């Protein structure tokens, strides 16, 4: 017994010396050019696959990936954030990702074999020591459009499809330099048909300024807009806020909601509130009296966007500008039915700034 313990102790000391030599003596070659020892990539990749399968959310958590605007929004974010390593459908990777270890796979290869819930987990969590970053936000519901896009790639999206989804409008004369980047999603006019993307033409400049700064510094939680706003300088963000706030709001309302009862319920709640819910229109309009320019206008906004945002407010994960604390309190007692009714009513109102 004593002999066994002595042997184990000796082995431990030797192991410590050997480990120290590797860590402090620089014995291990970290060269990416040299790569891993034989067999190691297989071990790492197998670990990766099994780890994703174990940790992914259940398949029941996957929403409708065919929802309007999902694939398009995912493609646009992919174009700004992911294409640099994974290339796009119909394109080859450029040189740099091909000499990374491990090399990020081309997107059409990367998405093979994965289920939507597993894709969500990979995009959300990232992969350690592979160069794959995690989603830069706490909120993870806005990963689903990305998953919808990846699902469409799996189903054989062509290069032309991709190019159509990610086209940038031509910059009008006198528009901010950074506009085409934003206009890919929001259009030059700030108005888009994609129900997941808010229209900006209805917002006052002060609100847009505060919001863009909040996205850039992460105090408004969104993986998509945090990335977008952090790529533009602060002075450009201010210029963009001015551009969108100066757009004409006259092509007004795109809502196609026909449930009159729902809209009527929304109107009553928005205009008067209850003993638990403040009257929305007092801050957001539409109303005759004065309104502070750092409250967002909601009349004519996309119903899907309104509903998503109200859920975020109610569930406490929204964040925003300097007055976000007001809305956190205001939304805390909204029911799902209240949110549906309010979204329907505001979306059906004529747009106004």
């Amino acid at each position: 017994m004593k002999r066994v313990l002595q042997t184990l102790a000796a082995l431990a000391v030797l192991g410590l010396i050997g480990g120290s030599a590797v860590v402090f003596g620089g014995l291990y070659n970290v060269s990416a050019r040299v790569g891993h020892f034989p067999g190691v990539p297989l071990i790492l990749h197998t670990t990766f696959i099994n780890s994703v399968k174990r940790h992914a959310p259940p398949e029941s958590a996957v929403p409708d990936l065919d929802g309007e605007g999902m694939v398009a929004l995912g493609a646009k974010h992919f174009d700004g954030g992911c294409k640099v390593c994974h290339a796009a459908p119909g394109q080859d990777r450029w040189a740099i990702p091909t000499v990374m270890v491990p090399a990020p796979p081309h997107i059409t290869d990367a998405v093979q074999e994965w289920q939507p819930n597993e894709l969500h987990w990979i995009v959300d969590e990232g992969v350690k020591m592979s160069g794959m970053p995690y989603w830069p936000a706490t909120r993870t519901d806005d990963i689903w459009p990305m998953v919808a896009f990846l699902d469409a790639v799996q189903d054989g999206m062509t290069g032309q499809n991709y190019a159509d989804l990610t086209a940038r409008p031509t910059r009008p004369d006198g528009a901010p330099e950074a506009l085409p980047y934003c206009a890919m999603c929001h259009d030059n006019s700030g108005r888009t048909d994609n129900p997941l993307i808010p229209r900006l033409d209805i917002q006052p400049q002060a609100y847009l300024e505060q919001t863009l700064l909040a996205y850039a510094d992460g105090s408004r939680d969104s993986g998509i807009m945090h990335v977008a706003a952090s790529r533009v300088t602060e002075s450009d963000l201010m210029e963009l806020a001015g551009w969108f706030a100066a757009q004409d709001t006259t092509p007004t309302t795109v809502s196609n909601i026909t449930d009159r009862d729902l809209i009527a319920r929304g109107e009553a709640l928005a205009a008067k509130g209850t003993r638990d819910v403040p009257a929305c229109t007092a801050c957001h309009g539409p109303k005759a009296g004065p309104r502070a320019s750092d409250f967002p206008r909601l009349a004519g906004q996309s119903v899907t966007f309104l509903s998503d945002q109200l859920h975020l407010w109610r569930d406490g994960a929204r964040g925003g500008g300097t007055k976000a604390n007001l809305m956190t309190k205001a939304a805390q007692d909204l029911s799902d039915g209240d949110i549906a009714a309010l979204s329907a009513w505001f979306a059906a109102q004529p747009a106004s700034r």
Partner: protein
Amino acid sequence: MLILFAVMLAGAIVLWVAVNGMMLFFNRISTRHYDESAARKLIIGGGIVFPTIVIAALLAWGLSIMPDQRAPGDGLRIKVIGEQWWWRVEYWPEGAETPIVAANEIRLPVGARTEFNLTSAYVIHSFWIPALGGKMDMFPGRETMVSLEPTETGVYRGQCAEFCGASHAQMAFEVVTLDTADFDTWLAAEAAPAMAPEGAKAQRGAQVFLAEGCGACHAIRGTEAVGEVGPDLTHVGSRESLGAGVLEPTMANIADWIAHTDDLKPEVEMPAYDDMPDDDLMALATYLKGLK
């Protein structure tokens, strides 16, 4: 009220003099040895019989006036709803179809019995105006009743008497009792819409109030502010206290309250407007103070 106090004080003085007098008498004046039967008589008489008689008499008197607190009122009903942590108050004059809405202060006519219908929005509170009567609990989903008949004009304090959360101690109110004629004049004024702001500063305050969305939670009758979440502010400038008995209703305190609600009243529902410029705060305070 004063009679009750005088009676209790007189009784207390008699008892205090008797107890201390006997202590002095037996220790200093008459220090001779008493036999056991005399001591027993004193203890039984003074320790059992006398208190039993006094307490029974007080109890009989107390029980005899208790039904008064459940007696029907003379016409005016006041509905009070306990909120977190303030008082929603509705005056229902006899025959009224809609109430006169107020908050955080109760005014009563002297010489008439007013009926209180009490309930609560979220948790159990207790409605207590010590100077006017006993307390009565307020339960969510249930209505309790108490009636009070003040006999003198004055300003009294009411207080929540059931622990109800972080700001239980800051849940108070003022009670103003008025002669019938004064009360009727006041109630007619309370029923009227808010006065228009006078002066440039108050007018600016009114603009700030609407622009910053205060009307989402607070009603000021006669304006577009119709919110029902927080206290009605139509005549807030005439109230004797601020924040449900928390502060003197000075302009500086009103501005301080708007900017620092949660410091003055922990966990209060109203968010603190600590980003609001001082100019705006003072304009708001001027406007609100003018809402008599």
